[in-house]
């Protein structure tokens, strides 16, 4: 699924290149021009060779390789790549004062970055370098655009006005466009990677490593003292993992979700023993209601890990599902250590850096994306007062079918 945009984008590149070639060939048939043919070949050659570099995005390293390649092939006075207003790479005449890492010096660069349109600067005045001894005479500056935003520009300098032939201008322009597409692909790559990471995090949220480790340890402890229970727990654990792995689809009935939670709690209870009491208050009318999968278990796990486990003495988790006509109110509360308002904010903030709140943030974001921005989790907590997490799900939501086993 996530690779689809990527594939599309690559297709777009192929079509764009092929289209470009076709266009050039078509024009050639009308006015056969040595120059155009040359321009086409040069552009394709350069595109072919710069592609692997810019595919990794725009940075000093990839910029230097690209600039060198262009310089070697076209032999202008100088070539530069500017990104975010900083010179990323510069090769050729004037490299004494146009240094990589420095702010872009010329007026024309700033103009291109601002407008996002290519500019042909025929004389030093138009280039606008503030070093009076600058050897650069004329320049073609083309923007590099990713998703409609100008992120940098490619500058090709020549030594005189006559050097700015239409062919050279066209080559520069085409190069700029192709580089832009490559950078767009790089951006997509990064997004795909982020998505995959988020997916991984969600998968990890399904069965947390802590939980697996703790459960196996609990079972190990029981093996000597109570082999019978150890066996039961192991079977339960196997069944739990099977359920976790086989889950597909976005929705399940609340009954299914509760059974999953119940199984999870059976394992947690084996570990906590009398320290953990679980109370259910479920209206039977709401059991067949469709809910997004895995909205409940992360809340219960959070209540145990962050509420009960840090508390001295026994704790209690209360799970309720209340029939409210068109809606179902679901709450998970604990009488654990509670959270400060600051902690509550952090827990609901989907900052992947803080693992602690990932489960809740994930659930909240999913609820919002399905049912609307006002339908996320509501968390009520104070230090020492326990925590209550609540959310409301409409029984009917256009497009969501009743879940059934």
């Amino acid at each position, binding site marked *: 699924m996530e690779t689809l945009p990527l594939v599309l984008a690559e297709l777009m590149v192929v079509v764009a290149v092929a289209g470009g070639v076709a266009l050039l060939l078509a024009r050639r048939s009308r006015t056969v021009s040595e120059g155009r043919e040359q321009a086409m070949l040069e552009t394709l050659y350069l595109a072919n060779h710069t592609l692997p570099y810019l595919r990794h995005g725009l940075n000093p390293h990839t910029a230097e390789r690209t600039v060198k390649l262009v310089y070697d092939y076209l032999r202008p006075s100088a070539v530069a790549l500017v990104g975010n207003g900083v010179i990323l790479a510069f090769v050729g005449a004037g490299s004494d004062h146009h240094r990589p890492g420095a702010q872009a010096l010329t007026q024309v660069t700033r103009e291109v970055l601002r407008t996002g349109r290519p500019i042909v600067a025929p004389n030093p005045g138009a280039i606008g370098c503030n070093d009076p001894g600058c050897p650069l005479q004329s320049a073609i500056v083309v923007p590099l655009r990713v998703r409609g935003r100008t992120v940098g520009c490619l500058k090709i300098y020549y030594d005189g006005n006559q050097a700015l032939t239409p062919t050279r201008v066209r080559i520069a322009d085409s190069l700029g466009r192709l580089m832009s597409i490559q950078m767009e692909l790089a951006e997509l790559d990064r997004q795909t990677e982020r998505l995959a990471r988020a997916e991984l995090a969600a998968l990890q949220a399904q069965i947390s490593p802590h939980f697996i480790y703790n459960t196996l340890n609990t079972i190990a402890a029981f093996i000597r003292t109570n082999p019978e229970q150890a066996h039961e727990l192991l079977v339960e654990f196997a069944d739990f993992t099977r359920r976790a792995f086989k889950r*597909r*689809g*976005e*929705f399940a009935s609340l*009954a299914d979700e*509760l*059974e999953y939670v*119940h199984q999870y*709690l*059976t394992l947690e*209870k084996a570990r906590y023993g009398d320290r953990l*009491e*679980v*109370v*259910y*208050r*479920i*209206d*039977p*009318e709401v*059991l*067949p209601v*469709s809910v997004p999968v895995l909205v409940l278990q992360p809340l219960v796990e959070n209540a145990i890990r962050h509420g009960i486990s840090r508390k001295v003495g026994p704790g209690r988790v209360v799970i309720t599902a209340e*029939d*409210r*006509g*068109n*809606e179902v*109110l679901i709450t998970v509360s604990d009488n654990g250590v509670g959270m400060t308002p600051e902690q509550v904010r952090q827990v609901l903030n989907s900052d992947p850096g803080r693992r602690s709140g990932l489960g809740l943030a994930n659930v909240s974001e999913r609820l919002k994306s399905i049912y*609307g*921005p*006002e339908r996320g989790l*509501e968390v009520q907590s104070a230090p020492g007062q326990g925590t209550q997490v*609540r*959310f*409301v799900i*409409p*029984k*009917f939501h*256009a*497009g*969501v*079918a*009743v*879940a*059934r*086993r």
Partner: protein
Amino acid sequence: MLTSGGIHWLSLLTFFGVAVAAVGVGLYTTRVVRTTSDYFVASRMVSPLLNASAIAGEYLSAASFMGVAAMVMAFGYDVLWYPVGYAAGYLFLLLFVAAPLRRFGAYTIPDFAEGRFDSPTFRRVVVIFVLVVGIFYMLPQMKGAGLTFNVLTGAPYWVGVVVVGSVITLNVALGGMKGITYVQTFQFWVKIFALTLLGLGVMAVTGWYGSHFERVSGPDTPRFAEARALAHPPRTTLKLTEPARVRALDPVVIELPGGEVRRAAAGELFTLPTGSSRVVSGGRLEYEAGSPVPNAPEGDSWAKPFGPFTSGLGYPLIFTYSLMIATVLGTAGLPHILVRFYTNRDGEAARQTTIIVIGLIALFYLFPPLIGTMGRSLVPELYASGETERLLLALPSAVGPEWFSRLLEAVVAAGAFSAFMSTTSGLMVAVAGALAHDVYARTLRPRASSRARRLAFQVSAILAGLVAIAAGVQVERFAINMLVGWAFAISAASFFPLLTLGIWWKGLTLPGAMAGTVIGGISASVAILATMWLAPLDLGASESLLWTLLAQPAIWAIPIAFGTMIGVSRLTRDRVPLDINLKMLRMHVPEQLGLRTEYIRE
């Protein structure tokens, strides 16, 4: 007043006791469940028998509990179409509507309207009719409450409406609908126990049903078995088919059929001639044993089709068919019925539930006709004062020793309260839910928090209760089942075509559905409101075809709605939803095929 007056303490106790018990059942069944090793979700699932009882409990309202028996007594066997229609309507709902809607994921008719046509606007239109039908259906419940309270305490009619209406409203608003499935089940068994005990108890004392039927279905008019004193309020009409000997207990002035005014001193014995006499003042009369009961329908016609129920009308056949259509087709559109069906754990349980529901409803309707017949036989004096609707509460006093009468009466009072409470609560939840969910949360304040929505539900419940009480006070003069029949007619005209075509015809478009629903619903509502306002004026128009069509609009309003839907849909062919085949698939593919392990999202 027929009974000796005074407050029936035991009955009053059970009357409100059953409300307290219902709330208790709700609280007990939703009590804290501590986790044990049993398969807890399965244990929390509602069994088909329990669920069927709940469905029947919510469905059988005051109209069924009190109204059918009373109407059978008043109008004879024509009235049996009401229970037949109510039961058959349920069958229709379960066979053709409930399963597709359940598969579709629609809990209510507005859900269906929105999902089938992808139109939140149409949803709002449908919500308006849900509110109309819901409020309309609460009226007969209020009427029953006012009447029962009046019999038990002697308080005026409106006091009962206000007291009972407030109790039920507050219970709903304060979250008293906890464990609603168990509460409705409890109330169903209270109702059926009350009716069964009353029916069997009366028969045990006074003889089997057959003997009563023989007595009342012959050509003879019902007669007073022994001398009986009745107090007729001024302006009461006393219609007699043969002369009756009466003794005036106070000085009495009566306008005799010829227009002559008869004055009788206290203690004077005189004859009321055949025809309609009118009480002018001092209506306390003692009828001699064996004298005919005034205003009682004649024996022959009472036990035959087109008897007293339709005899005043010029077109009894159209009236009867229209009534049958309304009761059979209106059930599916009642706002509180569909939801209860979702508590089933799966399709198979749903089918079992269906069969049990039909059995339970059939069992329930066994008794009202028997009780109506025995009422004609045992308490014919109810005819004289036009108080046949009090039958259920009057019948106990006609049998057996005092303690037995009081016991039966107390049980009936409990059953009556269960009837008002179960149906009114279900309707109120549906109406308040529609107000809070569709009007408040989806239209006025889309970003309201869940607490605000909760508050909105409570305010809506109180609002709905106030409207029901205010309107309920106004409807004392209408028979309970007439009111119910009207609610069914509006429901049938607005929702039946929408459900039928929406579920079974691919070609239905949004403009077609909207036009048909609006035109059908509005024409039925207008006809019924016109009848309600014109009926008391006694225009003498009841012989006309127009009058019959206004009083029972289902027979023309439903075809008009169908025609509009089909016609407009044909004209707007290009507006058929693009994913219509997917929607049809979702509604009609049986669950067992397992096509939907992945849930479809658009």
